[in-house]
């Protein structure tokens, strides 16, 4: 079984302080980490490989520093890693990102299963996984809770819904996005971490994956940010409730009720 895991490097929250004016937490300085939801995707891919044999390829798109996210995937047990890294990819929205990743998956060839994390914590859109599936004409299951049966041509999964779950049979090749309840990602051993750091990670350009340059990057992206603004400031006045316990409790319940919180 050939499995591709799509992963993303995202900014992690740095140290936090409280802004005395707005009472909001301000995070200072940030470094990059592997998107936390993608850890579950990598872990699930490696577990399927351990059960069924095959190979796991970690795929990402981003600046050269995104290699670090791929190294983490390799340390956890992915066999190979590829990075789409070129100016032409820069500024891609979720549509153009899905396009680029789908072309890379086509290029890898004979892929049975694509696994993504349920969403990336920087954008929180959850759009890239289904976007890839639609471009590759693959069956998809988003928010997968467990992968139950794996055969050469199909996959049975439990997919979360709002009242429980659905049991789905997907014909391969297919794409799934996984939620964090699916597994507990392993922590790499020092031995595997050292081996991972010695692996070569090829950097791929649009031509290497046969992508149409007119469908990549900011210029080809259907959505465009036209304005940014700070969010509404948190109501910073504290309402102090005093008095005996009974009175205070009644005052609180009244207040919550008038704010529509009960």
């Amino acid at each position: 079984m050939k499995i591709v895991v799509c992963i993303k490097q995202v900014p992690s929250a740095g140290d936090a302080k409280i802004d005395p004016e707005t009472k909001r937490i301000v995070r200072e300085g940030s470094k990059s980490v592997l998107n936390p939801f993608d850890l579950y995707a990598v872990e699930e891919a490696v577990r399927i490989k351990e059960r069924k044999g095959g190979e796991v390829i970690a795929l990402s798109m981003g600046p050269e520093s995104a290699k670090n996210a791929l190294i983490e995937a390799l340390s956890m047990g992915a066999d190979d890693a590829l990075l789409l890294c070129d100016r032409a990819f820069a500024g891609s929205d979720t549509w153009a990102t899905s396009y680029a990743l789908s072309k890379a998956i086509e290029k890898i060839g004979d892929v049975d299963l694509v696994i993504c994390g349920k969403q990336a914590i920087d954008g929180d859109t959850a759009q890239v996984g289904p976007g890839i599936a639609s471009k590759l004409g693959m069956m998809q299951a988003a928010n997968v809770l467990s992968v139950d049966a794996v055969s050469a041509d199909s996959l049975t999964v439990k997919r979360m819904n709002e009242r429980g779950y659905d049991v789905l049979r997907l014909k391969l090749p297919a794409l799934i996005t996984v939620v964090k309840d699916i597994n507990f990602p392993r922590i790499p051993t020092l031995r595997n971490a050292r081996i991972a750091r010695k692996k070569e990670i090829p950097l791929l350009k649009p031509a290497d994956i046969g992508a149409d340059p007119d469908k990549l990057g900011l210029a080809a992206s259907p959505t465009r940010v036209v304005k940014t603004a700070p969010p509404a400031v948190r109501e910073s006045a504290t309402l102090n409730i005093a008095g005996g316990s009974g009175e205070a409790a009644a005052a609180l319940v009244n207040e919550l009720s008038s704010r529509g919180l009960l």
Partner: protein
Amino acid sequence: MAERHIEGYHVEIIPPKQDSQKLEEDLALFASKLTRIRGSGFMASITDNAMGLLAFQGHECIEELGIDIDPDKILIHLNTFHTKQNLEEILDECRKLGIFNLLAISGDGSTRLPKLRPEDVDATGTASVTSVELTRYIRKRYPEFNVGVAFNPYEPEAHEFEKLKRKLNAGASFVITQPIIEKNAIVDKLIEMYPDLPVTIEAWMSKKLYLLSDVVGYPIPEDAEFDPIGTLKQLEKDYPQCGFYLSLLGFKTQYPVIEEMAAERAARE
């Protein structure tokens, strides 16, 4: 057995982080520090995912790099953020290496770190595994380990002494305090209450005293003046019967001074 922990210094060292971008360099540095501490006859205290930041395990580094150690002079921190399988592996590997000194702490978690469940350590009557349950489990399953525990003089006093009692009942045989920077009444009381219990005092070796704000529970200004070596010397006078655990020790300038202090102390004794 107990006296081991009080003589000389404990030097804290932190294994390379999982996300290190210069892992080989960090490993070489870790090995050289460990070798240097061994040469000085100090105890090397190796942390376990300190601050919830993912790092490699001390025993892994020792094994993988084949570092020559004096196992009696190694203290491995062990927190409650592991899978059961991982816990057993750590204990087995420590035994293989001849390392029998552990410091059991609750530790810092993160979403990336699994938490031991009560059933993993045969604990009942608790909702979460703390250093008490961990200590009890290790002492029961692997009685050959010496298990130390933490003591925090900044917690409400009655609460902390009651917790210490439970830790000692669980089988802990030595104590390491949170950092203090002057004679501390609660620590005095600890020594008085348990005259036979080896107590090691953590001494803060960084000039950045404000980093202790969260530990002590009140804000220390960022520009607070602090002389770590001078403070350590005073603490040694105040607590001649205690060992000292040196955290954030500078290996370039502070370490040679500590070596001199150890030599003077040895000469005195």
